[in-house]
């Protein structure tokens, strides 16, 4: 670590790391809010969901399954399935929280959305992951997520069809760049091939969040058992 790294520069780096993801997430939080009134949620209810759940994919799925009155156990179970991947991500991320005081580890994990996890893993691959960097990633992201959801809920149908504008591909581009960053790792193409094949097959048979779990499991199995050169210290 360079001598010039301070908590401030770490925090700033964290903010900059997630700025593209925030730019991508805000339109969808707005859309989420705009959809919520139509599904029978009040502005306060939708704001509370974004503040407490803070998980875009599961919030979209929840709106789809929201009834009047909503079924708490069905919505809870759906959130569990959609966010099961976070248990895997959490198990992986915990290994990189060595610089965090004990109380900060659960706090950090509660704010671990997909993008934060991915950037934290990428950071930990080259640098020590610090609490200041992590806070930089999370604070602005969380506040914009909740604020944008509220703004969308208030404004109603401000953005009617972000898909036609291609805005959802910002997420896809971010994820593809992150995957590409790992392409010199041993067994990279075998892992990607297994994950892609298994997730697409699962998606065709059983739509929903299962394709993520099955695809990730297949990729990890290949990583564990496929022959290949070992890491040369990198």
């Amino acid at each position, binding site marked *: 670590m360079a001598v010039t790294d301070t908590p401030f520069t770490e925090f700033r780096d964290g903010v900059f790391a997630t700025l593209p993801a925030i*730019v991508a997430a805000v339109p969808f939080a707005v859309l989420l809010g705009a959809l919520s009134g139509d599904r029978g*949620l*009040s502005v*306060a*209810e939708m704001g509370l*969901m974004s503040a*407490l*759940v803070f998980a875009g994919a*599961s*919030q979209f799925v*929840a709106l789809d399954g929201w009834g009047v*009155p909503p079924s*708490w156990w069905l*919505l*809870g*179970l*759906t*959130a*569990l399935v959609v*966010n*099961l*991947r976070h*248990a*895997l991500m959490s*198990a*992986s991320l*915990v290994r990189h929280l060595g610089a965090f005081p004990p109380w900060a580890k659960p706090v950090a*994990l*509660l704010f*671990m959305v997909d993008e934060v996890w*991915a950037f934290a893993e990428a950071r930990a691959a080259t640098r020590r992951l610090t609490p200041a960097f992590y806070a930089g990633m999370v604070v602005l992201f969380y506040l914009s997520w909740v604020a944008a959801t509220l703004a969308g809920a208030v404004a109603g149908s401000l953005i009617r069809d972000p898909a*036609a*504008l*291609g805005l*959802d*591909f*910002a997420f*896809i581009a971010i*994820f*593809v*760049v992150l*995957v*590409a960053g790992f392409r010199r*790792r041993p067994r990279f193409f075998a*892992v*990607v091939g297994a*994950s*892609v094949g298994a997730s*697409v097959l699962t998606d*065709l048979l059983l739509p929903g969040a299962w*394709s*993520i779990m099955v*695809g990730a*499991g297949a*990729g*990890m*199995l290949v*990583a*564990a058992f496929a022959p290949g050169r070992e*890491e040369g210290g990198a």
Partner: protein
Amino acid sequence: MSISAEALLAILAMAIATMACRLAGLVLPARLIGTGRLSRAFDAMPVAILSAILAPLLLTRGPADALAGLVVIVAAARLPMIPVIAIGIGAAAAARALF
């Protein structure tokens, strides 16, 4: 501006389920990781999960998204993040307008 009891219960159920997933890492791993094959599996997890999120989005949502996805992958092999995002949004908008 009100919060109904039913909605509050549903939101709390979602929040508890999500929080439980995010905190699972605190009790799951420790001595699990570190051995050869498991360590390799965990090292591959970022790539495995991201690929599994991306593949159905790019391969089962029609020709426009598949084409835009291909453009993004080619761009990601040689360009940094911000240009790839711009190219991705442009490619998706154009491909969806065409198909």
